[in-house]
């Protein structure tokens, strides 16, 4: 198994001249689990997007490593699993078609079918996502994030819209993979925070 790590130095993000955070230093690698916490507007979402390689910082740098290789942010983003409340699936496609799109091979394997079963979505995969409830969409997004067995998971408020069963399934999955993956979660939920080995508080 290849190790995935990221090392951020002097990370700063500004919106229209107003700093969201500045001079941030962070090192995380496979087996680490990090919770990013903070008040609304403290920059949790911005930070997790930058760490996931899908947004550029205003200044500072991040070095992503996969095995022995230094990889580009874009490659890191594609290797990683990412889910967030503001990331939408394709409403005009059904659940299965969304998962096929998300699959690196374009097909669904038995592991994904097992995940769908674990998250209670097997019977709903033939329905259009536009007809899903928000909780079902969140479950499907979570499956899409983890289905390619990524080396790193970046989860922005993964508990959003989930009922008790959904939260239980997501939390137990995070627990089961946190030793072999790098897991970064932006959250204010105390139960999610407790799943992580470390936490940082933004804007505090």
């Amino acid at each position, binding site marked *: 198994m290849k190790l995935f790590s990221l090392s951020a130095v002097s990370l700063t993000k500004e919106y229209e001249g107003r700093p969201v955070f500045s001079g941030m230093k962070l090192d995380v690698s496979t087996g680490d689990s990090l919770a990013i916490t903070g008040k609304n507007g403290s920059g949790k979402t911005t930070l997790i*997007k930058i760490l996931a390689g*899908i*947004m*550029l910082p205003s200044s500072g740098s991040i070095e992503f490593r996969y095995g022995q290789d230094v990889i580009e942010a*874009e490659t890191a*983003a*594609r290797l*990683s*699993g*990412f889910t*967030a409340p*503001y*990331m*939408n*699936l*394709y*409403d*005009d*496609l059904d659940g299965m*078609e969304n998962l*096929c*799109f*998300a699959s*690196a*091979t*374009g097909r669904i394997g038995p592991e994904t079918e097992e995940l769908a079963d674990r998250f209670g979505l097997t019977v709903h995969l033939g329905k259009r996502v536009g007809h899903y409830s928000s909780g079902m969409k969140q479950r499907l*997004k979570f499956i*899409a*994030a983890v289905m390619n067995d990524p080396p790193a998971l970046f989860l922005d408020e993964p508990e959003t819209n989930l009922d008790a069963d959904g939260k239980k399934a997501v939390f137990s999955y995070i627990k089961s993979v946190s030793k072999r993956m790098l897991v970064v979660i932006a959250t204010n939920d105390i139960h999610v925070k407790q799943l992580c080995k470390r936490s940082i508080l933004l804007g505090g």
Partner: protein
Amino acid sequence: MAGEIFRNLLKDFRVELRSRFAVNLSISFAGTMTVSIGIVTSGVPLSPQIISLLLWMIFFFSAMNGLSHIFVREVDQGTFMFMNNKIGTDAVYLSKLIYNAVFFAVIQVFITPVFIFFLQVEVKCAAVFIATVFSGGLAISATSTFLAAMVSRAGGRGSLFTIMSFPILIPVLWAAINGTIRSLENRAACGLGNPFFLLAFSGMIAALSFLLFRHVWIEE
């Protein structure tokens, strides 16, 4: 990358076939325009210049109605982050370019015979006419794809797309109209100069867009 291009293309065609938003918009505009012009000018002989101008005006505004949706839809519906997480930036651009080229070629296949029928157009040099129509369509698609990515990140999208496209598409429209005039006027005078220019223009715009696309598309 080929697998990613194929997955993204398949997804875009499925979404369009189910929503039919862009195709309805483009075809209804083109159909209404063609039939209206046909009714108004019935019995009046039109010069090849006027016919060519009308044909490319219809193509241009159909493209403006339909081609921006390929990126605007991803941003408006909040799906672009899902796509960016699963498909590489280069594959996103290439799949969207192929989609727009195929989409616009289909629109042209629908519009052109209707236009020829309603305006009773006599094509003197069919090979050059067809080559000009499709190479012009490719040039419009190549230009529109990159501009659609730019305007999808900005406000006031509909008007911005048309305003930005027009100056860049002037050489395309000039060559396309010229090529069409020649194919309608005289079999002996028509050549493949204009279609070649349009293909070269498409290649240049596509290559430049491929190099610049990540700077437009990756969130800052």
